[in-house]
């Protein structure tokens, strides 16, 4: 009855996440016997991979929550809005320019710039003169900007040298494979900072869901809040894409289900979505590398689940509920 109010769901999710991590540690083409675990390099790689899934799942889900609140649209999500494509393009440019070997932060910085550029472009295109952001124009702008940025990405793929080609292809499909700790180093700080900001300012996100003008009547500095959160969400998306490529629809599926269970209050929605997103991606990744003899790219798995889910929400939009 009181699930909406309580933190019970949070505890359940945490237990689920621990279970998912344990499963993920065991799952894969090779099953490592427990006795060999401490020394196994496979286990060490799997731990890195699990941590990356946790960071990416939390980052993408909370980006989704933020975009949905700012744009007052349940379908807003980094991948759908073309933000992921922008980040992917930035990352690909960085790889082709050789920035990936030059310094640790070259790729994430350009990915972040690409993400920010994409959302600003989509937002400007979709916004009408009265300041509203209607759903159809928003989705169309996101799809078109995503397609155009995607074609640039393809262009870069087509002209890149063969040894870089493999690296770039990797972005397109999304992978949580962590050969070393670098993906964790570049993604953990931005995602943690973004999550903290979203948790501290979650009341502002509540006000934004009322609309920009009502939020302003309640004393919120709307323009400043919008800028800050576009920045935060782009930072989280950019960092995630830089670390593990294009993983779509996580920011759509996770917040939607969490909202169904605990309601729309962002003070609970933000932390719970972060936790649920982490759990979801750890599970999806365990699935991706254990069902077939070869590993399925994680982006393929999430798109396979997310595409139909997107259509399902789109169909249900006719009802007054956001859920």
């Amino acid at each position, binding site marked *: 009855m009181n699930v909406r109010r309580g933190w019970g769901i949070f505890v359940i999710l945490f237990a689920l996440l621990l279970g998912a991590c344990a499963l993920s540690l065991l799952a894969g083409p090779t099953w490592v016997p427990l006795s060999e675990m401490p020394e196994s390099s496979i286990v060490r790689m799997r731990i890195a991979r699990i941590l990356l899934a946790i960071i990416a799942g939390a980052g993408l889900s909370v980006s989704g929550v933020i975009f949905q609140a700012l744009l007052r649209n349940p379908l807003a999500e980094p991948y759908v809005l073309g933000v992921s494509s922008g980040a992917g393009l930035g990352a690909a440019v960085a790889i082709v320019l050789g920035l990936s070997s030059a310094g640790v932060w070259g790729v994430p910085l350009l990915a972040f710039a690409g993400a920010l550029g994409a959302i600003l472009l989509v937002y400007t295109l979709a916004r009408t003169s009265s300041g509203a952001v209607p759903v159809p124009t928003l989705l169309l702008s996101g799809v078109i900007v995503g397609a155009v940025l995607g074609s640039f990405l393809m262009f870069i793929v087509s002209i890149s040298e063969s040894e870089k080609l493999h690296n770039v292809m990797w972005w397109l499909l999304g992978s949580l494979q962590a050969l070393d700790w670098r993906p964790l180093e570049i993604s953990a700080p931005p995602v943690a900072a973004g999550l903290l900001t979203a948790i501290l300012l979650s009341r502002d996100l*509540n006000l934004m869901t009322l609309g920009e003008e009502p939020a302003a009547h309640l*004393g919120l500095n709307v323009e400043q809040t919008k800028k800050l959160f576009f920045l935060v969400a782009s930072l989280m998306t950019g960092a995630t894409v830089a670390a593990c490529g294009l993983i779509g629809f996580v920011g759509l599926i996770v917040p939607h289900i969490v909202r169904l269970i605990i309601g729309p209050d962002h003070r609970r929605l933000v932390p719970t979505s972060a936790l649920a997103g982490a759990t979801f991606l750890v599970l999806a990744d365990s699935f991706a590398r254990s069902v077939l003899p070869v590993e399925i790219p994680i982006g393929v798995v999430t798109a396979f689940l997310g595409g139909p889910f997107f259509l399902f929400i789109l169909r249900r939009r006719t009802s007054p509920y956001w859920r």
Partner: protein
Amino acid sequence: MLSLKNVSAGYGRKLVVRDITMRVPEGEFVGLIGPNGSGKTTLLRVISGVLAPFEGEVLLRGAPLRTIGKRRLAQMMACLPQELALDLAFTVREIVLMGRSPHLSRIGRETRKDTEAAEKAMAVADIADIADRYMTEISGGERQRAFIAMCLAQEPQILLLDEPTSHLDVGHQLSLLDLVKRLNRRSGMTVVAVFHDLNLASEYCDRLLLLHQGRAEALGSPQEVLTVEIIRRVYQAKVVTEPNLVSGKPHIVISAGTDPPGE
């Protein structure tokens, strides 16, 4: 309390209201009326501070609106926009508590004082019994009351309303406006409201500002503003007025017909 000095405003390069001057003393109930597109909502947005005027200024207790901080302004003035669409399943109580935002620090959480203010606001708006219902499942009249309660939780001295009864049936219209009138009379809350319905404006307002093509066509008591001559000229509608049998205020009676207006 509130004064407008030669206010002109609009959007982009388009001028919507021109050269409006008006003083609203404390505790007055002022109605903004006029035909569609006459600039009522635009003027209310200027008064609320979300739209900066091209020229002139709005003074609140002698201080220009633009010099008052957003949070400070929201502590003094609450505004209920025309169509506050909400498709998220917040509960009534959660929405009313949002009215406490201007009294909280940016990262602050509600204290007991805020909860009490919200409970009081819900009691005044007569929605205490639906506090835990979802906004998405209550009626239009109840939703509008919830938003009024949200405004009251701000503990403002001025309440701005944009056609607060536009989608309500006559029973809900009257009960909502009775509530606003009570707040105005008993707590001395200054009210500035946009009205579409001239008869409601006549019944509830102390003074009316009639806008026509962005200009102030008439400003005064309902008796002074709602004359047959003015209404026929501004609205191009064939009407007569008579005193309301109950209140004595002007009542506009429409006369349907196929003749061109003004004949």
